[in-house]
């Protein structure tokens, strides 16, 4: 699977070192939520929740989008899904090439066999 450096993991672990932030991620895993919703749910101030979401956002664990006056938070999985989709398309490209290469290999094998017989 995807592997990243220690530095990146450190940033994530730092973001996850806080119980509220872990709770926020779990919450967002169930449904997207506004910062106000999250602040209410975790019984902390709006400012406090903004800070937590900021840390998660910095670590790439959460993305936020402001529509009108409401900032909605979601798990930062989109990039990963896009990478997975790209890798699958890249795999399909190589797979298609290799199917053609199979044909070339089969042909060369047949040729080699025929040439081998001629020499005998």
């Amino acid at each position, binding site marked *: *699977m*995807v*592997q*990243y*450096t220690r530095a*990146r*993991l450190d*940033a*994530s*672990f730092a973001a*996850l070192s806080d119980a509220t932030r872990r709770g926020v*991620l*779990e919450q*967002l*895993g*169930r449904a997207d939520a506004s910062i106000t919703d999250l602040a209410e749910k975790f019984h902390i101030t709006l400012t406090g929740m903004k800070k937590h979401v900021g840390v998660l*956002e*910095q*670590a*790439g*664990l959460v*993305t936020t989008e402001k529509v009108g006056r409401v900032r909605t938070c979601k*798990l*930062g*999985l*989109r*990039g*990963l899904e*896009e*990478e997975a*989709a*790209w*890798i*699958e*398309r*890249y*795999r399909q*490209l*190589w*797979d*298609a*090439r*290799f*199917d*053609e*290469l*199979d*044909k*070339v*290999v*089969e042909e*060369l*094998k047949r040729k*080699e066999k025929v040439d081998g017989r001629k020499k005998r």
Partner: protein
Amino acid sequence: MDERRDSEPAPMKNRTTVERKSERELVVTRTFNGPARIVFEAWTKPELLKRWWAPKSTGVPLISCEADVRVGGRYRLEFGHDASKPMAFFGRYIEVTPHSRLVWTNDESDDGAVTTVTFEEKGGKTLLVLHELYPSKEALDGAIAGMEGGMPEQFEQLDELLVTLGASVGRS
């Protein structure tokens, strides 16, 4: 060698895998039902290379294919629908070890990868491993984003932990 195989149907198609091994590396693997010398030949003779490098399903025809496969030799592949405005891929071979190893550069940009292909023969089959090493994480992310047509900034910071986390909360 194995004459009995002649009448048998074509063997099952082998699986192609692609994995992002690290921030800077992509690895493609595939097994071929033939000896390494034959698979290697198909990678190193331009007239054979051009028969498989641009399969029809990609929708972009290969206009020209030149490959001087020896250390320091250059290659150039041109694709496109309009021969006057081709999309060119070029570079040079920096290692050529017959039947076992090929290394070339991708010189279209500073972010081009170094590609290493190894051919490992076992029991008449060849395991091919194609390894692309990008100069930086940004270069590989850029290659991905470039084909994707834009990537959120957050992608830069996603990590394996998030995968685990996402998988576990996604299930609940």
